[in-house]
């Protein structure tokens, strides 16, 4: 990472700590903000957060690795999360998944070259009666068919 980038990030995190405080309970809101802006939380950012909260970098990494909505690896601008739990599975998840993969030319777990979309599976999102379901960022889409899913995907910027 360039020194300039580091300095920007550092300032940004210092501001977040000013807003949310430097107690342990501030950790998740701070990480969420970084995630929102950068689509991931870099090694450097994790160490900065640790320093300002006076905890250890591995504790920050532990929290990031625990929560599916936080990531320590670069991700696309948008994250598509298709539910893989049994109800959606029976409702036709497989064909939806195949259609999306074909449309984007990437597999689940990957990110498009232009960083537009990352594809992931998720567990039940509470929409079991309206499956198959998926999340795009924090929005829910239900009763998907392969065609409908592709249409929605193509609208993402």
């Amino acid at each position, binding site marked *: 990472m360039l020194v300039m980038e580091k300095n920007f990030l550092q300032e940004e995190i210092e501001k977040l700590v000013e807003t949310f405080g430097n107690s*342990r*309970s501030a950790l998740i809101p701070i990480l969420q903000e970084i995630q929102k802006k950068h689509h991931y939380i870099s*090694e*450097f950012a*994790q*160490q900065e957060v640790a*320093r300002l909260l006076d*905890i*250890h*970098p*591995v*504790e920050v*990494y*532990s929290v990031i*690795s*625990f929560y599916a909505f936080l990531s*320590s690896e670069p991700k696309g601008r948008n994250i598509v999360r298709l539910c893989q739990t049994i109800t959606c599975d029976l409702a036709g998840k497989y064909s939806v998944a195949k259609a999306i993969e074909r449309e984007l030319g990437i597999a689940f777990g990957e990110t498009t070259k232009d960083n537009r979309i990352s594809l992931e599976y998720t567990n039940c999102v509470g929409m079991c009666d309206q499956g198959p379901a998926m999340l795009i960022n924090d929005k829910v889409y239900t009763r998907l068919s392969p065609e409908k899913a592709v249409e929605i995907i193509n609208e993402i910027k």
Partner: protein
Amino acid sequence: MSDKEGRAPESQKPLVVEKPDDTSKIGGMVSMEINERKVQVPLGTTILEACRQNDIHIPTLCHHDDLCTAGVCRVCVVEVEGMRTLQAACAYPVTNPLKIKTSTPLVRKARKHIIDLLISEHYGECYSCFRNNNCELQSLAKEYGVDHYNFGHVQKPRYEIDKSSFSVVRDLDKCVLCKRCVRTCIDLQEVGVLEAIDRGDKTRIDTFMDKPLADVICINCGQCINRCPTGALRANDPRDEIWAAIDDPNKHVVMQTAPSPRAAIAEEFGIPAGKSMTGEMNTAIRRLGFDKVFDTNFTADLTIMEEGTELIIRLFQALVEKKEGVALPQFTSCSPGWVKYLEHFYPEYIPNLSSAKSPQQMFGALIKTYYAKENNIDPKDVVSVALMPCAAKKFECNRPEMTDSGYKDVDFGLTTRELAQMIKEGGIHLPEMPQTHFDDPFGDASGAGLIFGATGGVMEAAIRTVVELVTGKKAEDLFENANVMPVRGFEGVKYAELPIPVVGPVPEILKALVPNWDWLKGATLKVAVCHGTANAKKVMDDIKAGGKFSECHFIEFMACPGGCLGGGGQPIPTTPEIRKARAKAIYTEDESLPLRKSHENEHVASIYDKFLTDGPCGHISHKLLHTHYTPRGKYID
């Protein structure tokens, strides 16, 4: 010991109830019934403690006497009357009258299932594991009669073994996720290398961004190894290379032995903690085929001369010459875990570290120069092994700067556990060995060198010497039997003030450095001692804030709780009781020795006569016995 609750966030802290100071007050004691037996316990006692006090065995796995409660393994469950579910005994403080049962069919079945489940995720073969016969998982399996894999068994290793570190090897396949290492590294050591990463069946204990241990900030103390119940963590073991050197007729293999292993090695042979086996160990080492066995206490004495002189020089510069920027307090430098801790977390204080090498490395430099020369041995044929209670010594001897003899000064750091293993492989039962002494020319060392093994020992040794050299009086006149009690004991941070009411003549060996002692007359020497790097952090933060420790002159830091006797290479288990017993063994042996002060060691005097001819902190000693440090910082790229 550091504050036991450590840094766990409030929300994650298990319920802990402070025990009352005075249990005779109303409400101070609570009555409970354990298996229909009525007992009284102080309020806040956990069910586990209550059972132990009443000799009722409860199996445990994630519990460790040194660590805060985690309550994650559930092996310790018991039935509590009125509760819907079984309760974890280690995490249940007694606050109101209770009736519990520790061995009902329900309890036994639950524990058995829990153990079966742990084993179903465990990959390892006991016969090829260093914890064979000393593994808590294995003993639980035995205790509960596990004879088949009820819930299946991992067939193939899932992880690669991390052998990147000179000190600690990690084999995640054997890990049972008890998080003892996590609590050790964060709460006792304040280094924070390990945490639980990912969740569900992917959970593992790993480093920052899953990097190899050698690439993250680890001080190599090995405390995590000593707290691990299984073989998931072990030391980087050089036994094969050492055997090969012994078997090579062209190699001259010498061993130096630190003070702590001798006070603990008997434990590896089934003897309760607290019995020193110095003489027996010397014999065993020779029978294994080592050519010489030396006493590291000798270079501990030398360390006192060098480090003590360095302190006097710094004080003289600051107080008499009024030089600017003299780095005080001076910090001890014999604990390589502490040295690396400082290099990472407080690199701006490197000037305060004594430049004197640790006794291990001083010895290494002398063996391949002075000793080799005196005995007409080509130093390239000398293999120098250091028996240490320590995992960090393995890293220390591999520091690139530790080659002042022209060779790698110390070839291998061997832990107490590893030597015990070699002795067993050699077919020797240690307690049956006759006693023999160390070899010359470094054969005799003082009790001051010996107590380096306990927290406060370096300080006590330095005080015995400095007091005599400066006041011209006997240490015995100031401290009963020359035992400097204020710096002894297991309190996490100790502080002492030593007034210097009178001064004597400057002894010959220091005449080149100071004209007289008048400038110390009426002064008060302020010293501090701490052990466990979590306590070091407290002291360092106080110094940074300009607190009372910033006014100290000399501070002893040891990375391991209890000092070296509680080192990461010592026999497993190490608990508060065991540390006490080892300390007693060390102090008893010190008192039994005729020689108890470093500066009275004739062999030390003769090495200054013959070899280090320009005296302590002179040119030759600077070249061989002193070193420099690396500011490392706490960022990982």
